[in-house]
């Protein structure tokens, strides 16, 4: 019992001496003790189940997780070698009451971003009203004039979003960045859950973990809902860059679970303002493209002329309203980290509400005063490029060398529009099995939201990414990050309210159906007369069996039971 969590607080203690505020630990209220035993309420059951295991046992299970992923092909490329996607055995647990807030915050943010994109590619009211400067929009790398006027039938541009959240030193949720282009990772949420249930079943016992398997259905519904007007049975496809893409596993999984075609650019062609795919039955019209290809590669007539990943004419078809591209082209402007700093204002402007989940404090470097302050304190801040995602190009001041800071300083002075600065936030930590044993590691959370035009549905859980090196604050799988299964536990609130009548009746009706089935009787399985279970067979058959046995083995002339056992020995040797 002591074994697994021994030495957990060792690293926390040593960091405390350096002075910065220590991270919020999600499992233990007091992580600095060497072997913490008192857990937060959410983790009580998980801790109980884990504490019964030894470290070797848990390592064995972790190896089983990895080998199952290798067999399934849930891998990523590491220096030309296929490695299983790293999944930690300790889940992250979020209780339902807390999740309700997260969910509401995500919904609010998606709705605000939808309103913002519709506005920016339309009347630009927010610019006229002075909420956001025009120069910011026009200078964004991902603001595409080509996207103006392209609207799907149900006005949705962000069918899928992955908004990255973190918990700060006080445990409060904050938004780290918005991803409304092609957020990836949802396949790992689905496969993590399945492999966890197969390999660590005892953790699930007595916990009401909300299932995540519904995601492909929700996504398909949202995609169908965004189909061009007048199409009764829309033909949905997933557009992938191809097998060499690092997220190819995810593309295949989504296409498989939605039962739709997975196409590459060369499978598509545009003709007569429509998009078609080449099939054995001739050209088949495509109505909705869930594309996992970046804007720049989508249509060589509009963007990069050398792209072979898209199909020429696709954007024209979308503009004519004959095909829906999801997520919409040009969404990248909402991912711009400088737009991110305006989001609380935009939420107030479009929705008349205050942001439910706050941003991380951010300096806009275009402001000369802010730039000056940031340059002064460069060694204690995090500086990020505005159009990078997943930690690309990010510099953590306290961890950077003098030379790195000097280059950064020059870059900031040359292009202040290209960067933002934030204070170093100690992301919350969760126990993670590393080489030394169970240790706190920093983690973030990417919940996925699907917008079908009438409602924004947030997948209960999401992808928890964890940085495996000690003290590392950048959590990205391309930089040696692991993942955790994320559990939202407790009943859905509406289970008790609106739909409770349906649910409970449904359950009762099922029980009734069960007892009826009992009344109808059980149908026993058929058996070959010679393999009938001994207890059931009648006297005559036993005699026959005995005779046969005697014929072959004169020795065993005993009772039927004896002849049975001798047959068994016979088989086993």
């Amino acid at each position, binding site marked *: 019992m002591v074994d697994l969590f021994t030495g957990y607080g060792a690293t926390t203690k040593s960091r405390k001496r350096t002075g910065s505020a220590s991270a919020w630990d999600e499992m233990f209220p007091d992580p600095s003790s060497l072997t913490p035993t008192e857990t937060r309420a959410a983790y009580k059951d998980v801790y109980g189940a884990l504490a019964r295991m030894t470290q070797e046992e848990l390592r064995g299970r972790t190896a089983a997780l990895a080998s199952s992923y290798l067999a399934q092909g849930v891998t990523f490329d590491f220096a030309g070698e296929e490695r299983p996607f790293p999944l930690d055995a300790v889940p992250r647990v979020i209780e339902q009451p807390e999740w309700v807030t997260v969910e509401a915050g995500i919904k609010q943010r998606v709705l605000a971003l939808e309103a913002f994109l519709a506005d920016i590619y339309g009347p630009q009211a927010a610019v006229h009203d002075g909420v956001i400067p025009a120069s910011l929009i026009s200078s964004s790398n991902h603001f595409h004039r080509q996207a103006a006027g392209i609207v799907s039938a149900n006005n949705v541009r962000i069918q899928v979003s992955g908004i990255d959240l973190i918990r700060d030193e006080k445990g409060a949720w904050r938004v780290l960045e918005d991803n409304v282009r092609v957020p990836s990772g949802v396949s790992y949420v689905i496969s993590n859950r399945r492999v966890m249930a197969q390999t660590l079943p005892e953790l699930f016992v007595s916990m009401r973990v909300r*299932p995540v398997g519904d995601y492909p259905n929700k996504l398909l519904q949202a995609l169908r809902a965004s189909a061009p007007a007048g199409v009764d049975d829309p033909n949905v496809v997933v557009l992938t860059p191809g097998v060499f893409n690092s997220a190819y596993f995810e593309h295949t999984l989504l296409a498989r679970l939605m*039962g739709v075609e997975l196409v590459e650019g060369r499978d598509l062609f545009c003709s007569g303002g429509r998009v078609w795919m080449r099939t054995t039955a001739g050209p088949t019209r495509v109505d909705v493209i869930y594309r996992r290809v970046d804007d720049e590669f989508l249509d060589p007539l509009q963007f990069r002329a050398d792209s072979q990943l898209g199909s020429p004419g696709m954007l024209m078809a979308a503009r004519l309203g004959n095909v829906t591209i999801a997520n919409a082209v040009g969404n990248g402007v909402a991912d711009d980290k400088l737009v991110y700093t305006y989001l609380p204002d935009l939420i107030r402007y479009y929705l008349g509400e205050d942001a439910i989940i706050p941003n991380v404090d951010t300096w806009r470097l275009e402001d000369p005063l802010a730039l000056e302050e940031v340059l002064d304190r460069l060694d204690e801040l995090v500086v990020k490029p505005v159009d990078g995602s997943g930690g690309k190009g990010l510099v953590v001041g306290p961890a950077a060398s003098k030379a790195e800071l000097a280059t950064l300083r020059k870059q900031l002075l040359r292009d202040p529009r290209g960067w933002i600065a934030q204070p170093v936030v100690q992301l919350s930590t969760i126990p993670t099995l590393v080489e030394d044993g169970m240790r706190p590691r920093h983690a973030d959370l990417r919940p996925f939201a699907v917008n079908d035009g009438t409602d924004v549905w947030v997948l209960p859980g999401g992808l928890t990414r964890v940085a495996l090196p000690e003290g590392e604050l950048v959590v990205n799988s391309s930089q040696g990050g692991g993942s955790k299964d994320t559990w939202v536990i407790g009943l859905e609130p509406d289970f008790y309210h609106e739909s409770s009548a349906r649910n409970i009746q*449904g359950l009762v009706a099922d029980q009734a159906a069960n007892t009826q*089935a*009992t009344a109808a009787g059980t*149908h026993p*399985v058929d058996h070959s007369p*010679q*393999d*009938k279970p001994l207890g059931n067979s009648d006297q005559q058959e036993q005699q026959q069996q005995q005779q046969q046995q005697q014929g072959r083995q004169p020795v065993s002339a005993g009772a039927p039971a004896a002849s049975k056992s001798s047959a068994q020995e016979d088989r086993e040797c």
Partner: protein
Amino acid sequence: MLSRIAESLFWIGRYIERSDGTARILDVHLQLLLEDPWIEENLACRSLLQLMGSPVPDEGELTRKDVLATLAMDRTHPASIAYSITSARENARRAREIVPTELWECLNTTSARMPRKVASEKTHDYFAWVRERAALAVGIVEAGASRDDAWHFFTLGRSLEQADMTARLLATRSLTEASGPSWTTILRSCGAYESYLRTYRGVPSARNAAEYLLMDRLFPRSIVFSVSRAEQCLRDLEPRTDRAGVTGQAQRVLGQIRSQLEYRPIMDILNDLPLQMMRVQDATSTASEAIGNRYFPKGNVPTWTGEAS
């Protein structure tokens, strides 16, 4: 060919298919118990036992462990995977001179390697193993056996068992909640989920999923497909030139149940699923018995009784 040999082949087919079907049903349902928090474990386990044709204890809470012990591991329990595997091997031994050596070795190895205990985190691996062994045995026959009477009896057994297993599976419908997910589960059980999604391009609805598993003409585990294949085997075993009707009792029973399913409105069947599926199971049992009477007559096994005076 000898009736006794034919009978063994028929039962090898049935037992292989049964071990496969049982493993699929258990795998998905036991996993569902973990993943879906709203299922009452005791109730679900009871229904599962009952559906597999196993007596249900009157008292006490049943857990997934009990189901696993009974339906997977217990070598003496007639509905268990272990029992099917042993029986398939025993039947192969009785027909050793006809059964291809590759098949015999496959069944023999399976039976010898059948574990006596499975840790709860290894159950999925165990079921996967059972499915693989069944696939291997079927593959050996499909790839290498001439399409003679031996193959027809083997396939006849397989087809009947498949119909029976799918019927049991469909009857598990009443195990869980009334809405969508459990149709997903049922489809996953027989490896039909992905092909179903491609066929219907959408979320499983009760109507479509039932239609797919009951009467799809292309999906090999659908009841209509299995029953039709069994009928075809019977026709091939005994080609008839009569101008009217069928003569065999087995063909009659199978034809009746197939027509009932094919020509009845799907919603009618759905509203009365447990009973309808019970009828399918009855039909396969009756057909199995009729085939036994027709092709594997027991007669009175002559025994020496001494001189009568």
